[in-house]
């Protein structure tokens, strides 16, 4: 399996968040370069290699560092130590907001998102109908996104991100809001994306969804890897782990 090209490589990645007791302390510390009072570790000396075409589910209790990890891979957060190498275009659905502009309509956001990701206007135009159909928004597509429910946002967000032909598709929790029929549709879409040779990373609390969407499972706890293997084994490990507490 190690013959495949590497999509993502993390080497000894640590990420710390500085916590402050007051706004004043925060401003002072950051602008004047002092040491923060409390340091919270999100990931601790974390190493992981993901190959092209893999589908990986990340399990772990709240605060395990899953979201931080995906943010760092997306490039919207920086590691404090260690290195991250990512090959290819990343399309990420981080949390529910998905980087939408609330004042713009769903349709405008499709194009806006495409521009930000650097997808040619023509390509987006060709994908427009497919995205709208997939998101099942109907007439709502021409309403401002701020009026959408979280489910609608997640659907549109997933439809856009999965359709722009990413090399790496990242979905963080967003799909937990859909019903089982939509979930099945997503699974089809993900398989389609994987079929094109893309890599898929997924964070969820739903073991069923993870098993349906992914082949490899990584269990995280306090910023480190506890288990890394086939998704069934990882799911069993995770359920045992949270069951114990």
């Amino acid at each position, binding site marked *: 399996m190690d013959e495949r090209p590497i999509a993502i490589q993390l080497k000894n990645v640590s990420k710390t968040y500085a916590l402050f007791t007051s706004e004043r302390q925060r*401003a002072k510390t950051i*602008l004047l370069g002092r040491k923060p009072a409390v340091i919270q570790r999100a990931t601790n000396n974390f190493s992981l290699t993901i190959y092209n075409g893999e589908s990986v589910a990340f399990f772990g209790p709240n605060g395990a560092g899953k979201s931080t990890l995906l943010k760092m891979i997306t490039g919207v957060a*920086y590691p404090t130590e260690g290195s991250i190498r990512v090959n290819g275009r990343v399309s*990420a659905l981080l*949390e529910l907001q998905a980087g939408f502009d609330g004042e*713009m309509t769903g349709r405008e956001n499709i194009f*806006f*998102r495409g*521009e*930000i990701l650097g997808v040619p206007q023509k390509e987006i135009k060709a994908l427009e109908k497919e995205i709208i159909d997939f998101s099942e928004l109907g007439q709502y597509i021409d309403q401002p996104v701020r009026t959408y429910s979280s489910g609608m946002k997640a659907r549109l967000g997933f439809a856009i991100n999965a359709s722009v032909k990413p090399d790496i598709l990242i979905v963080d929790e967003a799909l937990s809001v859909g019903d089982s029929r939509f979930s099945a549709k997503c699974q089809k879409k993900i398989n389609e994306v994987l079929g094109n040779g893309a890599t898929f990373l997924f964070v969820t609390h739903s073991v069923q969804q993870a098993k349906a969407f992914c082949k490899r499972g990584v269990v995280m706890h306090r910023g480190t890897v506890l288990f890394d293997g086939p998704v069934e084994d990882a799911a069993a490990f995770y359920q045992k782990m949270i069951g114990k507490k």
Partner: protein
Amino acid sequence: MRIIIEIIRDHIRYRKQILKLAKSDLVKTYKGAALGWSWSVLKPAVTIGIYYFAFAVGLRRNAPIAGYPFFLYLLCGLVPWFYMSAMFTGGAKVIRKYGYLVTKVRFPVSVIPTFASLSQLATNIFITILMLIVFLIYGQRPDIYWLQIPFYMALSFFFFTSWSLFAGLVSVVSKDFMHLVESVVMFLFWTAGIFYDVSGIKNITLRKIMMFNPVSIIVNGYRDALINKMWFWERMDWLRNYVILLGLMLILAMWAYKKLIKTIPDML
């Protein structure tokens, strides 16, 4: 130096997106209001009307200045000010406003102030053209000095875009900074010589200090072009002050960028 190259590279790579985002920022500002685009003219028109009333009617200061009607003199000060005022406070809020471009998608932070500033500039170009039409209505003839208007506009753009990068980053870390900016803006407005001529201040030290107000520099430029009929190279003292201020602002922006770029996503 590495930072400057990084910022320039981001701007080149995202040049198309900058224009598109500027356009969408502009569209967004006026969308959803029944009067739409008319507000871009109505709002400044109301402000001009208020100040004109206060000075011309209230304080009876309607005497021509340098042979020019006071109204035209006032326009030269207020029209460039609209862009600067939007940039002072709006520019400082811009990274908060576009926080989702920092935390949800991979997008170069240094580009955000640039497209927001371009969007403001577009509105300003529009009302500047209207101002020139008013000059024509007052019987002024366009001459070669008018060509300096785009030059001073560019000076304003470079300074305030750098300001926006600096202030936008710092205000993410400190809300106090935001409040500080809001209180300083009023001070800069009233000491900028929008209603009077800074060069005419009698106290030499005071005048020299006031000539370091970026607002004064731009406003004076507009008056040189439209009223005093002077070239920018005849105003070396103003130009020197501008270069000093721009340099200072660039250094501050680079400092803030270097210091904050990696912590900003964690704070939004």
